[in-house]
């Protein structure tokens, strides 16, 4: 699934505004670069849930889904679609 560009833009703003993390680009590696730490990861999960009204399935979570803003956008879009279909 290719996420909507507006969603990626929203997420970039969320990183900058809510998490105070300057992400260079939507395909920047957030994990290997150290931009996201274990603390900010937990914060990110909670902020995404609150902002988009989704429940991130921790039981079935692949951290690779959080590797870039683009992948996070795809995850959010998928979870939002699942919620709408439910």
């Amino acid at each position, binding site marked *: 699934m290719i996420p909507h560009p507006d969603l990626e833009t929203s997420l970039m703003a969320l990183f900058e505004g809510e998490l105070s*993390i300057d992400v260079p680009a939507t395909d920047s590696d957030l*994990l290997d670069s150290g*931009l996201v*730490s274990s603390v900010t990861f937990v914060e990110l*999960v*909670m902020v995404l*849930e609150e902002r988009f009204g989704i429940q991130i399935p*921790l039981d079935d979570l692949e951290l690779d889904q959080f590797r870039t803003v683009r992948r996070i956008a795809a995850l959010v879009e998928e979870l939002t679609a699942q919620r709408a279909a439910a």
Partner: protein
Amino acid sequence: MTPLTVLIAGEEAAGLQLLRALAASPHRIAGVLATPDTAAGAPGGQGRSVHGAAVALGLPTLPAVRVRDPAFAAEMRVAGVDVLLNAHSLHIVCPEVLEAPRFGAFNLHPGPLPGYAGLDAPSWALVNGETTHAVTVHRMAAEVDAGPVAYTATFPIGPDDTALLLYTRTTRLGVPLLLKVVETLADDPDRLPVVPIPRQGRRVHRRRSPNGGWIDWHAPAAAVSAFVRAFDFGPFPSPWGTVRTLAGGVEAVPLRVRIGGRGSTAAPPGTVLAIAGDAAEIACGDGTVTVASLLIDGRRRPATDCLRVGDRLGAPPSLAIPPLLKATA
């Protein structure tokens, strides 16, 4: 509902979430005790810290260590603090400060009590093979993690759960419990549950990785898998460091360790039994585990590239690993 005057002692995601929720509530935040950012950024990595968020909200900030100072109690009384909320701040709060707020102090503890007092409760729960875990909000007493419980949320531990996921769950479930304490105190303080914690079964855990991280291949496969997951913070540094094993005389970090399909084998524990698909299957004391890759000299290598059938993984001969991985204080 009578809005309360709240003092927050917080760090990490739990402290941030608590701060944000209270800042958006009718309650008044008298101040925030938190570790200031260093030149390198927020404590624990990049991103906004509790201290930074408090400053951005225009709230008074205080050094986190003030909770150790008996003289701080008088300042809290002058400020009319109704309740002190502690979310992942690790300073030991002195008795005078605990008793200064009208309703006392409450702590978010990422584990069930009395069995998982102290530090790194999610990791210790995994090491001990627990099948459920909990987050507890309790009134703070002079003895660490010993005051009566107000609210608890319990959840199952899945077979592949890592320490990072348990930590995330305790934060997600725990912050609303702290907020529930505030709401209950504001509505009707007499309704707040006060459930004493029994002395029996109390264990206070320390930040000390069991076995120095060395995997005991003589343990059952389920225990080996749980031991590895207790150190697993995904791509992030674990407070316990890494697990370790010797592979061909070289120290290696096994990654993605799962319980294998075979039952008991005659092979000595630590023996590589098979290379199948993208993983190696290793004999344990009872059953097997699969290992997908190993970190050697900082490089991630597929297990299928660096292990051969018949290789033996183990710990240094000089290391005496206790027969059980049970965590103790």
